[in-house]
């Protein structure tokens, strides 16, 4: 097995183009499991650990160009694909609260020190914990090839099947562009214990008061991570018609529950060793109801803080 270790992004893209048999490795927390158990025998490994560009995060202001994803004039975090979860937790809790919350639940501390969002996207598991908050926030995945340059793919279009993504064989993931939170965000996950579990089901939501919109992300309950667009529109519409975005009044009885039911309806779960389809649907409805209740309470609190 050849070991290729480029030290710049340009070199990494060149190597990727030349060696279609190379498997990229970032934190290695997915790739190494496959290697140690002989599930994969790649001709080469392309180590991304020495590419400094991948390990940075920066803030781009909303006037700059990520267009549709950024809130009105809002800023966007450009999160390098190789930034480990531990740094997201430490650095980005305020800017990207949903992603940071999910990051705090990935694997174990040792896994979080190595594992990256780029690797989570590369594996594209339906159970990947970064995916629901990225979907809820309206993130965009930036991929690049030496031949065709940069492509920006909305997270909702990035996942194309079970453990499949929109990456072409000569492309690498450069970064994720995540709009900074302008309202409360929540993440919930159900597993058999607290640490080191693959989620049985997971849910993320984000309130976007600037555009009067609601974002959602469902994990482990469909062939790919996915949004619940009907639930998003339903809740945003109800909040709008009751004038609640301005008044920040209490949620009407039954609204959070009705939202939860619509989230569950958006899933297409299966029965497997981790849980039944029925349990997944049920738990999604509960997580969606709870998380929107918490998010709304936080939204009400924000007003009190501002006053």
């Amino acid at each position: 097995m050849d070991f290729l270790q480029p030290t710049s992004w340009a070199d990494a893209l060149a190597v990727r183009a030349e060696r279609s048999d190379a498997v990229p490795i970032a934190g290695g927390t997915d790739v190494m499991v496959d290697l140690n158990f002989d599930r994969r025998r790649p001709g080469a490994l392309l180590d991304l650990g020495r590419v400094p560009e991948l390990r940075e995060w920066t803030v781009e202001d909303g006037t700059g160009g990520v267009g549709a994803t950024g809130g009105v004039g809002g800023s966007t975090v450009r999160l390098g694909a190789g930034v480990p979860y531990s740094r997201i937790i430490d650095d980005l809790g305020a800017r990207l609260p949903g992603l940071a919350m999910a990051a705090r639940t990935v694997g174990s501390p040792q896994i979080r020190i190595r594992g990256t969002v780029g690797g989570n996207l590369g594996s594209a598991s339906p159970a990947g914990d970064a995916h629901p908050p990225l979907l809820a926030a309206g993130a965009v995945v930036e991929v690049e090839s030496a031949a065709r340059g940069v492509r920006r793919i909305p997270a909702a279009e990035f996942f194309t099947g079970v453990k499949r993504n929109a990456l072409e064989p000569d492309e690498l993931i450069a970064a994720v562009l995540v709009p900074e939170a302008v309202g409360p965000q929540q993440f919930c996950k159900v597993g058999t214990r607290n640490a080191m579990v693959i989620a049985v089901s997971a849910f993320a939501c984000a309130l976007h008061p600037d555009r009067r919109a609601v974002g959602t992300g469902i994990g482990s309950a469909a062939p790919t991570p996915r949004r619940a667009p009907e639930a998003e529109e339903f809740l945003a519409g109800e909040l709008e018609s009751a004038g609640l975005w301005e008044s920040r009044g209490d949620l009407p009885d039954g609204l959070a529950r009705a939202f939860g039911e619509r989230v569950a309806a958006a899933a297409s779960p299966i029965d497997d060793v981790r849980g039944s389809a029925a349990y997944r649907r049920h738990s999604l409805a509960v997580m969606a109801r709870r998380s929107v209740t918490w998010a709304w309470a936080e939204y009400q609190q924000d007003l009190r803080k501002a006053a």
Partner: protein
Amino acid sequence: MDSQITLRVDGAAHPLAVDTRTTLLDALRERLRITSPKKGCDHGQCGACTVLLDGRRVNSCLVLAVTVGDAEVTTSDGLAVDDVPHALHRSFVEHDAFQCGYCTPGQVCSAAGILAEARAGWPSAVTPDVAADTVELTDDEIRERMSGNLCRCAAYANIVPAVADVARAEGVRR
């Protein structure tokens, strides 16, 4: 394919040729006979292989030896200075924080990692105020932060106070 590397472990440099597929854990144990990191599962689940890589705890079974480069590897053995046990070693003994001892070197490295992380203010899933500058290592925090280290003998009830004592001595716990 073999690759010529130099591993810096517990203060000593070890030049060696390794197959590119070799994990750091196997390089340490099988090639350098540094056996305090243990292999429990070989896939990141148990934490028995935990070492510090430039001061940060990692599962050495999930790190390829060829990717380590100049980083300093510290094993539980290396936490002892001039054969004087580290405060964590002593505390584990005093609290009887093990039975068979297989998980212990990993537990000790992980505990050394959490002391540094708490000082740096890294929040965890149970930290009440994630924006605070420092974190107090309460029992809940210790349990959550040690959750990547399993103990088949279930010495947890003694591991938590063993870590807590050292945390208190180091000022990250009242």
